[in-house]
């Protein structure tokens, strides 16, 4: 039984999902029956770290503290454990302490990714979006291939309604992960918001190509193609620049029709 729970926990670690309730439930029997975890395997510390973070998410501070003591005993001078101290400080409401810890770590070793990212997360949680953006940009200056960081930056830009910058970030993400339809979807929606309708249409179509019957994608296709159609009917002078390069009206009609069809099919299928 413990073997099964351990392997499930390992899977969750692998996919880096955040499922605090599941993790805590799985780990409960393991932690209570100390004998079942063989402390020879180094996996046990990974499990501790995982359960620690889950405990913070669920607000079980006492459990988190106990785990932290265990980890500290084994890895006395570890940067990784230090950041856990920072996290628990953030959780109980001492952000200044956490900031101190993270800044020290960052100064000591400015390649430490963990400390840098926690600092940015801290700023974001305190609502200092501008500062967070600045710091994230400096992080990305060095680590340009961290697509999750680019994604985070794009979210921050969206919070401040800086759409062109957000689109730029998403382009970086797409460069690194071209086959993921979700990123194309975000990119398409940003472009739609900005008014680049032709580009938005193409990106929505890409989403729908990559992921069959994607409802959000088809909604996008329908809305954009109808809008372009409507704008095309305006006199040439009043047409906004965003529709330059859009397909012919006939194609637009067919796309819109296709979208309607697929949406109706999706909603009337008896799945849920």
């Amino acid at each position, binding site marked *: 039984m413990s073997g099964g729970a351990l392997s499930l926990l390992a899977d969750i670690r692998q996919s880096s999902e955040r499922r605090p309730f599941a993790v805590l439930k799985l780990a409960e029997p393991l932690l209570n029956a100390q004998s079942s975890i063989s402390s020879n395997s180094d996996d046990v510390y990974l499990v501790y770290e995982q359960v620690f973070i889950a405990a913070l998410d669920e607000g079980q501070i006492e459990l988190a503290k106990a785990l932290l003591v265990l980890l500290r005993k084994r890895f006395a001078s570890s940067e990784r454990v230090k950041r856990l101290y920072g996290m628990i400080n953030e959780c109980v409401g001492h952000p200044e302490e956490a900031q101190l810890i993270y800044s020290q770590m960052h100064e000591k070793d400015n*390649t430490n990714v963990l400390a840098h990212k926690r600092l940015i997360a801290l700023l974001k949680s305190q609502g200092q979006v501008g500062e967070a953006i600045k710091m994230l940009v400096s992080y990305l200056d060095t*680590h*340009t291939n961290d697509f999750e960081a680019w994604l985070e930056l794009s979210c921050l830009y969206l919070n401040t309604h800086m759409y062109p910058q957000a689109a730029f970030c998403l382009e970086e993400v797409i*460069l690194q992960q071209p086959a993921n339809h979700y990123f194309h979807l975000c990119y398409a929606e940003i472009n739609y918001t900005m008014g680049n309708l032709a580009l938005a249409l*193409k990106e929505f*179509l890409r989403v729908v*190509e990559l992921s069959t019957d994607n409802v959000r994608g088809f909604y996008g296709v329908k809305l954009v193609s109808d809008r372009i159609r409507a704008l095309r009917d305006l006199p040439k002078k009043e047409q906004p620049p965003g529709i330059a390069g859009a397909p012919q009206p006939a194609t637009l009609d067919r796309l819109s029709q*296709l979208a309607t069809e*697929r949406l109706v099919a999706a909603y009337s299928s008896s799945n849920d």
Partner: protein
Amino acid sequence: MSGLTESTDQTMFLDPEIRNWVLFPITIIMVLVGIFRHQLTILMTGEPPKPDIKDIRQGKALMRGQTLAQSNSYIPASAFANRKAYLCQAYENGTFLKNKSKDQSPVNLMTDPKNMEVMMDGMKKQMMGIVPQTLIMGWIQFFFSGFILIKLPFPLGMRFKQMLQSGIMTPNMDVRWVSSLSWYFINLFGLRGVFSLILGGENSADGIRDMTAMGTMGTMGQQAGQPQDFNKLFMSLKDSLSIVYHEWDLANIEQRVLVKYGKQSQIYKSAAR
């Protein structure tokens, strides 16, 4: 001792004491020395060198250019043009270079302190490999020479006689009867399997690795990837970027989607948008 003739089946009677006092001890000693070496290497290995932030930045900037060249068809032409212009300019100006001076005179390997650590580690490892081997070989030569130990199950050519029967100069004895030194070599190759069982996959008790390391000791100056000339790499990347022909993957996506959902039977080459 039979056979003045060149018979292929010489039989010789070996003292069983030889088996007890030579065969087994050599093997046992080699296993023990291997384990000892392995543990000692673990103790002595220093920490891997930590990358400097400027090095990381350099490396990642290179990767960025490469990703751009590779996946350029997934972003619109304007985005690509922007990035291409920016990156080419940056590579030209050397904004990503570690030491701003474009003149990357090959960094003197000897004086670069970071490299010293790496090289010392490498040398220590090699010492750990060579010394025990030499010692054991010498010990075997000293103590266990002058008699044959085992009979090889496969025939060999005459040339090996000199090496494998080093102590015993008999013109007629079959090459299959060999001395203890060759038993040492057999163990050297054979114990790899035993060591990986005892010590786990990646162990430092591997005799063969040391032999290949001895061979490459002459080329120690060329540590792979060490002072790569990033300026040159950037320049070549800039060249390859500037000749990339951007073809947007989404140029005829309307047709592709219509075909995918069965609204159209084929993609028309004359992309009548």
